[in-house]
């Protein structure tokens, strides 16, 4: 019975798909790391008093949110790096940049929204006690805003993970790409795709559970 299972097309695809999964995870992790940094900067930039800073970040956010990620990835890979600048970015690096820039725009809105949602009275209470703007942000506004960011951030992380699959069009060897390679060679299309989806779920479901726990724990 176990032997039969081990011999099945489902299990046999695993070692091959595993390589793709590693790439998917690496791009997601790196992309989100940079995406979160960009998003925090952009989100706070959109709350800036300066019209110019606000304007620049707004343009960035609107362009990214208004165009599909597939077009963005192609743009970075072929449009900018190859055609415009003439360097040859490898597919993996392009993937990380595409995810970072894309997630950054959505994270910017999450950060801005969370900070904006904190009652104005909190800011006034901090300032009236003599705290500087920066201290008020750091000790009063940010910790409260951060809690509110966690559910939508978790949501965005899951979306970005799934978004990496479109990178297979620029030949990033991610999970979907490896899946296609595998069923083209073995013709076990159904079995391979079942395993591809299961592998995604192996990450997204635990992530959702962890997030729900975290939300409950942070709800002081």
């Amino acid at each position, binding site marked *: 019975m176990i032997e039969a299972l081990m011999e099945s097309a489902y299990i046999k695809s695993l070692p091959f798909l595993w390589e793709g999964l590693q790439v998917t995870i690496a791009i997601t992790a790196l992309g989100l790391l940079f995406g979160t940094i960009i998003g925090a900067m952009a989100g706070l930039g959109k709350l800036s008093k300066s019209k110019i800073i606000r304007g620049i970040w707004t343009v960035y956010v609107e362009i990214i949110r208004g165009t599909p990620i597939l077009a963005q990835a192609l743009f970075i890979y072929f449009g900018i790096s190859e055609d415009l600048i003439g360097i040859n970015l490898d597919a993996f690096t392009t993937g990380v940049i595409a995810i970072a820039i894309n997630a950054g725009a959505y994270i910017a809105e999450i950060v801005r929204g969370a900070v904006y949602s904190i009652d104005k009275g909190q800011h006034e209470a901090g300032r009236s006690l*003599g705290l*500087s703007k920066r201290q008020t942000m750091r000790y009063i506004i940010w910790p409260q805003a951060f809690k509110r960011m966690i559910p939508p951030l978790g949501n965005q992380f899951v979306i970005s993970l799934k978004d990496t699959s479109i990178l297979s069009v620029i030949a990033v060897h991610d999970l979907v790409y490896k899946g296609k390679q595998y069923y083209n060679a073995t013709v076990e299309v159904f079995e391979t795709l079942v395993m591809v989806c299961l592998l995604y779920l192996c990450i997204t479901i635990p992530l959702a559970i962890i997030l729900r726990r975290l939300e409950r724990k942070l709800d002081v």
Partner: protein
Amino acid sequence: MYNMISVKDLHKYFGDLEVLKGIDAEIKEQEVVCVIGPSGSGKSTFLRCLNLLEEVTYGSVTIDGEELTDRNTNINELRTKVGMVFQHFNLFPHKSVLENITLAPQKVKGLSAQEARDVALPLLDKVGLSDKADAYPQSLSGGQKQRVAIARALAMSPKVMLFDEPTSALDPELVGDVLQVMKDLAQEGMTMVVVTHEMGFAKEVGDRVIFMDEGIIQEEGDPEQIFDNPQNPRTQSFLSKIL
């Protein structure tokens, strides 16, 4: 006695809307001044100009000899001299009662955690909430929250305390405890400016009542004089509505 607050020809605009139309006021050390007036008359704006939560459009505000509107004044330092208590408490919900009180002494005055505790605990005792040091704001009643907010402001050892309708968001049965704390504070000689419609408090504790309407001080005087024998028709009409 010495003028703790001195306001000269204070004007405040929000865009084109002139909310304060030339306020002149002097508040002496240890004086308790109550500000009354209809909603929208500029009472909160006036109070908020006294610690620059609102930018002054023109005119001058001097607190304890320092001019707020002077560019060279360190606003953060000056604000530590002016405690403010808000209608909706504005406690920090992510911090315990004790942390609410110790945050500013630590971050602004540079006290150690232990020193800040030593400042906070007697204040909590003073407002009758020693047993709530480790509680979080959401578990407190409105009256308790407001008393914590008063202790938080006092922890910076301010020279002046501003109260903006401190009891108007409270259930009637909780008002008394907060007013008692304010009364004690007045008796200890704190200089206080209180926007309130609590007539009993104004009569018992107030040294002076200012009636504001349409962005100017319409009438001021002893509490008895204002409440029992108002001269200005606007004051008369306002008092007849709230009494």
